[in-house]
């Protein structure tokens, strides 16, 4: 009797991967979640209880990568289990976890979250609360639907060649592009906030007072100074310094 992977199997692995980081720990990191997600597939193809046990013990090792891009590894693992080529899985896991972690962290935590926060903050600062929904929906569409679900299928379809598929996505260039757009929008947001919310920049330059201009110049200078300092001290201390400066200027 031959077994084959169906959409139901993918869905089971997908939903089980929601608990991927539940038992995150110092020794094995995400390995418990990795085995938990793949367990139904292992059970399906290794029919004897002893074979399942051997697979589990053999694969009980350090595994740590980005939780969203881990789906690519799941997909390849399903393919390898299906082909009864489990010996390659151990090496593949080790080879893939660091590049996927670097790329995934840069995409999910580094740039995507920041860009979505910037967009939602722009909406919220101009009193459109749909900004929160925009953040929530796009965040989930990209990370939980595209990377988590389609990553599984892309990994399964491409097998060990998935790395070429990921390289073909040209994610590094896309990250650089988002960074440039983010910076341009950041500049535009600060200008618009100063003009519309704080009423500091008047385009006609008739209503601006010397005091206001002077405070803003000092604030901008200090803000950039603190931004540089931010890398050296913990954010809470920076935050306290911000507050003290604002208090001093306000008084």
């Amino acid at each position: 009797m031959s077994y084959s992977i169906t959409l139901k199997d993918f869905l089971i692995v997908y939903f089980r991967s929601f608990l991927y980081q539940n038992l995150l720990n110092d020794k094995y990191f995400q390995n418990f979640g990795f085995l938990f997600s793949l367990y139904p597939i292992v059970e399906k193809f290794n029919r004897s209880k002893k074979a399942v046990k051997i697979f589990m013990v053999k694969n009980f090792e350090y595994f740590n990568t980005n939780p969203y891009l881990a789906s690519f590894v799941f997909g390849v693992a399903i393919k390898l289990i299906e082909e009864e080529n489990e010996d390659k899985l151990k090496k593949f896991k080790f080879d893939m976890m660091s590049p996927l972690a670097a790329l995934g962290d840069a995409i999910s935590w580094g740039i995507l979250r920041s860009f979505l926060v910037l967009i939602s903050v722009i909406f919220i600062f101009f009193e459109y609360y749909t900004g929160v929904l925009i953040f929530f929906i796009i965040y989930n569409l990209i990370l939980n639907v595209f990377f988590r679900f389609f990553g599984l299928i892309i990994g399964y379809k491409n097998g060990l060649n998935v790395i070429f598929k990921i390289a073909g996505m040209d994610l590094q260039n896309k990250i650089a592009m988002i960074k440039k757009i983010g910076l341009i929008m950041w500049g535009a947001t600060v200008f618009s906030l100063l003009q519309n919310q704080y009423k500091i920049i008047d385009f006609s330059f008739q209503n601006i007072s010397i005091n206001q201009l002077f405070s803003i110049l000092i604030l901008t200078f200090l803000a950039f100074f603190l931004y540089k300092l931010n890398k050296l001290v913990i954010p809470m201390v920076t935050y306290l310094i911000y507050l003290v400066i604002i208090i001093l200027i306000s008084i």
Partner: protein
Amino acid sequence: MIIKFSAVVALLNLDNKNIVSTGISRPIVTGAVLGVLFNNLHYGIFIGCIVELIMINLMPIGAFIPPNGTLITGITLILSNNFHIEKAGSLIPVVLIFGLFWGHMVKRISRLLWLRNSRLVELFLKGVENDKITFFRYNISVLIMDFFIFFLLTFAGSYVGIFIIQNVVRIFFTSYYLQFAFDKAVFFFPLFVLIYLLNSFDLPNKSYFILLGILLAGLVSPISLSPLLSIVLIGLFSYIVIFSINYYKEHYYEL
């Protein structure tokens, strides 16, 4: 009241690491959810935004555990609700600072949870060796334990916060000038916390792009219908231009 909201915060916090990671535990969304529950959406989203921007560069990379943003937002909003701070803006920074302090405390406790998980996983491995594969038992017990631990942390944080802030108000907030200064500080919050975002968009020549954004906003402002629309259009315009330049470089530059 505090029990009810601590439970909601602990439930939302499970999304942080334990289940799914949908982003509902991000301060910006947590703020909105708690804002709806507190019947003050505007204030909830405002606090969520501020905490989100302060914590934007703290990422769970490798073994690093960032301060817990869900708890920071939760405690800040619970305390604000307790003191009716939305009517007295001068106390917002005090409550926020306490929330940030508690978030950093919880970060230390999260490290202990990792150690607990190591023990549990070793127990699981022993079970596997004895032919007992019990994934769900461990998963569900960790979910329940984490829920109660974070519930207690939020609950304790709220009570400690009430005690501390009462005394801070009694000792320091008698001065009119100090209250006035803190009111002003709240006014400038959004502008200041936006600076944290700059670390995320780290490019070698980033000041040029910021200046370009300011220039474009300045050029558009006399004819724009709304500031939001002009920022979105600037974003779209810059996307088209950067995409075209990249496309040109890729296809024609070598020719």
